[in-house]
């Protein structure tokens, strides 16, 4: 769905040149949630800007479906949530959606209907008529997501959708991403929060200093590398308890827990999960 080949991008700042992307290639398949992972300054936002035609790049090629990324039609099948939600703060949520709908040449009736639908989808039905400058960060993020979904895009591009959100906001965003995936949308999201990758992504690329240094499936990596899992139980009498367990012993543990009447709170990959993989790969590249 998205094919990026050999993209190089330099920023000029004063007389200095910063090489933000040093030949990035990756492919995002139709219908998957793809994570663009990397530390601050890795070039995630730059890659997304190139993809959306928000900035020029010197070398390489980006295709969206069959189209070159610069074609107008490519922009009509994508939706973009920028890093730190960006809409007009002097307008209400609804006015913002109507404004961006008119940029998409939607007719008045359709855009009113779509706007109402989306405000409901992101849970801003009541707040839709308040000025955006009165919104909390989570509400900002959600109105921006609604903006990105105005044209019912096939491809949704999210730049750090969970950053700065409280736990509840984060859960809401994860739910929304899962819902979009169910609707068959292709999602490219950048993040530096590893648990978010584990929570929603099918595949991911690790990007570091302008280069892709790893690309693979989330399940695969966990299966191959995770040495054990951390299971959290809620016990009637003694509260929360964490247990480290190997994959093959997991079911046995669950049986035991059921017999005792424990509740499972979470199961996460422990040592050898993505977090550690990232750390190892990046350290390797530093040397």
């Amino acid at each position, binding site marked *: 769905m998205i094919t990026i080949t050999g993209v190089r991008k330099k*920023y000029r700042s004063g007389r200095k040149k910063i090489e933000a992307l040093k030949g990035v290639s990756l492919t995002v398949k139709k219908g998957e949630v793809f994570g663009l992972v990397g530390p601050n300054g890795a070039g995630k936002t730059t890659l997304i*800007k190139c993809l*959306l*035609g*928000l*900035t020029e790049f010197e070398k390489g090629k980006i295709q969206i479906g069959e189209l070159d990324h610069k074609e*107008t039609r490519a*922009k*009509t099948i*994508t*939706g*973009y949530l*920028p*890093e*730190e939600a*960006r*809409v*007009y*703060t*002097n*307008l209400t949520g609804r*006015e913002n959606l109507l*404004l*961006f709908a*008119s*940029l*998409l*040449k939607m007719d008045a009736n359709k855009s009113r209907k779509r706007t109402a639908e989306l405000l409901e989808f992101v849970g801003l039905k009541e707040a839709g008529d308040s*000025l955006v400058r009165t919104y909390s960060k989570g509400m900002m993020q959600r109105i*921006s997501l609604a*903006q990105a979904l105005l044209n019912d895009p096939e491809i949704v591009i999210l730049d750090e959708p969970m950053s700065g959100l409280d736990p509840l906001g984060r859960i809401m965003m994860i739910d929304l991403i899962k819902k979009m995936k169910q609707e068959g949308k292709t999602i490219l999201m950048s993040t530096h929060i590893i648990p978010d990758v584990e929570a929603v992504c099918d595949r991911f690329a690790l990007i570091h200093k302008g280069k892709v240094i790893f690309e693979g499936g989330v399940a695969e990596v966990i299966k191959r590398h995770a040495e054990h899992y951390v299971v959290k139980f809620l016990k009637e009498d003694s509260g929360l308890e964490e247990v480290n367990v190997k994959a093959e012993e997991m079911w046995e543990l669950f049986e035991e827990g059921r017999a005792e009447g424990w509740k499972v709170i979470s199961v996460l990959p422990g040592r050898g999960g993505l977090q550690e993989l990232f750390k190892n790969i990046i350290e390797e590249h530093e040397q």
Partner: protein
Amino acid sequence: MNAVLAFIKLSLLEARRDRLYLGLVAFAFLFVALALLLGMSPWGHIEEVMLHLGFAGVSVFTLIYAVFMNVNNLHRDLQSRVLYTVFSRPVQRWHYLLGRFIGTALNVIILALVLSFIIILSTWYFGYSGNIRWEALALGYRAAIQALVSGAFALVFATFMSTGISIILAFMMHFICANVSIFNLLIKSSKYPGWTKVLFKIIYYVVPDFRYMNIIDPVIHQRVINWELLGTSSIVYICYIIVLLIMAFAVFQTREL
């Protein structure tokens, strides 16, 4: 064209919502009210003095409003990165600039119009002749269109310079446009070396001359007004605005958002 219209609407809406812009408008009203009060002091020629001072206020505040709005709208949208969202949609960069400029122009024209009405009606109410001096609307028009030329300069500067410098340069351009004849004197004077004369000549011939729309005295003292001059100078100013906008589009097209 949908996009241009959308940004025109946005600019009109923001002018009513933004505290800075509302503050500027409030200041303009206050200033003009003070000017009118001053004009009413018992010096005789009440009508003339009120019109003079009142429309001087309109000139100053339409200029400030136009320059400030053109620079601030663009820089705020750049800084807040809302333009990332905007240009992720099928919108050309010049659509955005043109819509913003026209929206700002409408705001400036509305401000000039409202202030002109206030001045004209107060002059009628407090004056001696009992005439409503409708022809003074031409002064409001003059203030607005000259402010728009300076606003277009401001927009060109704002596409590649910082907020403060753009605003200062735009005011400087306004001053130069209002005093182009100085450069003619400088060219004729023998004190300056050759290369500065080339510079003065370029400024003298390239920059629009605001003196050209010379209607203040005839309007205020009820002499014959040269409407044809008003028309031709308007056309000249509009041509300048178009050229400046095209320059702004060209620079903005290549800049990093």
